[in-house]
């Protein structure tokens, strides 16, 4: 089964925009669907963990490659 992966490109944006854009994007997708977020703000590692806990949208994957942070969230 392949789920459609939605995307948010927040590269180059500073706090609070990666979170704001993610919240806007997740509002437009269905429950259980996945959202991939790319960010370059180093603070986003902590922010997305906290955001996932506050909102209940699961952070299923998290990685970093050459200064780009990648988060995959599953909408609750």
């Amino acid at each position, binding site marked *: 089964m392949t789920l459609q992966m939605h995307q948010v490109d927040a590269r180059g944006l*500073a706090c*609070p925009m990666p979170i*704001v854009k993610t*919240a806007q994007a997740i509002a437009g997708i269905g429950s259980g669907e996945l959202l991939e977020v790319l960010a370059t703000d180093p603070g986003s590692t902590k922010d997305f963990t906290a955001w996932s806990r506050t909102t209940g949208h699961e952070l299923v994957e998290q990685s970093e490659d050459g200064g780009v942070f990648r988060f995959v969230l599953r909408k609750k």
Partner: protein
Amino acid sequence: MTIATRSIPMDLLREVFVNAIADGPSGEFAAAASVGAEPIAAAAPVLDEPTTTIATEPEPEAEERLPSKADELLIIFESGDLERTWATLILATSAAASGMKVSIFLTFWGFFPLIKPGAKIGDNWMQKMLAVMNRPGIDHLKLSRLNFMGMGPWMMKRLAKQYRVSQPGELLEIAQAMGVKLIPCQMTMDMFGLTRDDLIEGIEEPAGAATVLGMVADRVPAIFI
């Protein structure tokens, strides 16, 4: 005299440490607190509170949080300074993005960022003077320090652009679009000679301190900026 001036920072320090332990399920905080606790206790033997027992309390799990209104946030915005307006809006938009219901209670200087450009404020010379001395509007805010007749804000905004930090004006628009409530303080409006027409669109009905305290009584976390 010396005792009095010493005891104030001690109390403050203790409060900060105790709060840090009570607030955070973080090992770092607890470690910092227990390290810090010894010299404080030695210097001021009055504080014989067993800090270590607080530190060893079980860390609260996210699921075990009290049903306080942690899904709401109240910001009492009093300063109106550029950097504090910025911080307020960053917090407010982040909280709204985290699914929290956010209210910003505007009081004293906190009004000035939300006054319409070109609004003619005040009925008497004192109120008019206020608006002249403190040019209203989100694009005319001053830094609380290093303002240098506008040089500071100019540099701050340039830096923000360079680092792609959203400007206060953009953040205010985003905040309003995300449903952040802006509640004006009736008393300040009267005193400063402000009417609803002087303020930007989308502001709530004016309210007073009792409204703020009512939210606090309902355990809505409140921040004073």
